[in-house]
Each structure stands twice: as structure tokens, then as C-alpha cells.
């Protein structure tokens, strides 16, 4: 996969392998915590660890979390919108997608959310994340590959925002 900046207003991801294109299409689904309690708790984490602040924590759940949910959803909708324009070449199956530069923040957020949710949903620990994916036939390895790909893309997008 190649990343280029054809102009000031867009980023082009080209030569995307079908497997990686599939990972891209899964970003928003992966970022959805659904009913998974651990993933929900990670996305909407507690604002205090002090048991005396119970009232504050209640207010937070009632008023702040719905606003955060809207914020997270809007980033995922932007990613979905960009991915709808992803096209695959007939012969190679490789895909390409253009991302407006002002969507990069949303992509960084969505990739981060997907990584956090997947890690919680599949109960991965720090040691798991450091492990290199071993085999394409192993579902756990495919999950690690998906996580590594999202992390790499997030890192590259951060670099682009910082002019690296």
C-alpha cells in the first residue's frame, strides 16, 4: 500500500491489498462496542476514581456520555463516507481511496476507537499486542494483523498532520 499527497487537500491510499481493504471496511464495525461491557467501559471510562464523587459520575453518565457518543459517531460516519468511494482494480483486486485532509482527525479517532474496542472485546493484553502475527489461518493472528495495520495507519496519519 502506498500513501501519497497528490495535493494540499487530500491523501491518497493506493495499491491496497484486498486483505487490508477488508480491514479498512471493518473500521466502523470494529469501533462499535455493542453490548460488550468491557468495550463500553473503555470507550466511556469513569471520570473519577473517588467513591465520594458518585453524584458527579451520575451526571457524567447522563449528560456527558451522550455528547461523547455523538462525537465518536460523527468521526465514524466521516470514515464510512470516504470508504464508500474506495474502488478496486479489476485485475489485481488492489483498492484505492482518497481521503480529504480535513478528515484525517476523524480517521485517527476512528482507528484509535477500533483498536481500543477490539482489544477489550477480545481481551488482549500488552504482551499479546507486542506479538507478531504468526499465521494467516489463525484468527487471533488475523486480529493482531488488523490491530497492527490500524496502528500503523494511525501513526502515518499523525505524521501527515504534523508535517512529517
Amino acid at each position, binding site marked *: 500500500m502506498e500513501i501519497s499527497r497528490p495535493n494540499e487537500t487530500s491523501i491518497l491510499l493506493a495499491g491496497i491489498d484486498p486483505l487490508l481493504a477488508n480491514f479498512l471496511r471493518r473500521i466502523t464495525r470494529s469501533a462499535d462496542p455493542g453490548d460488550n461491557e468491557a468495550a463500553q467501559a*473503555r*470507550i466511556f*471510562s469513569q471520570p473519577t476514581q473517588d467513591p465520594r464523587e458518585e453524584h458527579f459520575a451520575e451526571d457524567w453518565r447522563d449528560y456527558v456520555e451522550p455528547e*461523547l457518543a455523538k462525537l465518536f459517531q460523527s468521526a465514524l460516519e466521516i470514515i464510512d463516507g470516504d470508504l464508500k468511494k474506495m474502488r478496486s482494480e479489476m485485475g489485481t483486486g488492489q483498492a484505492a481511496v482518497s481521503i480529504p485532509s480535513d478528515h484525517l482527525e476523524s480517521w485517527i479517532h476512528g482507528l484509535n476507537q477500533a483498536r*481500543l474496542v477490539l482489544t477489550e472485546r477480545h481481551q488482549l493484553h500488552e504482551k499479546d499486542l507486542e506479538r507478531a502475527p504468526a499465521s494467516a489461518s489463525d484468527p487471533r493472528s488475523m486480529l493482531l494483523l488488523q490491530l497492527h495495520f490500524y496502528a500503523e495507519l494511525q501513526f502515518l496519519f499523525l505524521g501527515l498532520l504534523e508535517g512529517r
Partner: protein
Amino acid sequence: MPETVVEKETKSRPAIDVPWNVVVHNDPVNLTSYVTRVFQKVFGFTRTRAQKHMLEVHNLGRSIVWTGERERAEAYVEQLHGYLLLSTLEKSV
């Protein structure tokens, strides 16, 4: 004549006037470069200062990134949660 019932406010927040810390906690998933960038964006830190706090989070498990009045501390925690960082408010001792 009906009896007058005086209700006491029981839901007051404790010690609102003391300084409050905004604490960021470590998690193994957030990228160090992402955490640094969030600190720069939310608090206007220089890159060096943002990296110092990021390394504190990474190496010590937590870093106090801001101290001050309660209302602003709550707003900062909300912003940090918007970036999916693990952040809490705590009383400064």
C-alpha cells in the same frame, strides 16, 4: 396546618473550592505519538512538555497534566475522554 418539611440539599459536591488535578492514566493501546498530540491540542503544551507528560504516563502509569479550579478540570477531563484517553479528576492534596 400542614407540617412544613425542610429538605436539606444532600447532593452537594465535596470540596469544590480546593484545587483539582486532571490525571491521565496509562493504557497499552493508545500510541505515544497520539497521546503527545492530544496533550498539545488540549492544553497547548509545547511538544517537549507534552512528551514529558506522555512519558510519565507510559513509565509511571499516570501523570497530573493540569491543576486548578474544578469547573475547568471537568472540562479538560471531558475533552480528554473525547480523545479516548483514560483521564480522571481528583482532589489535589
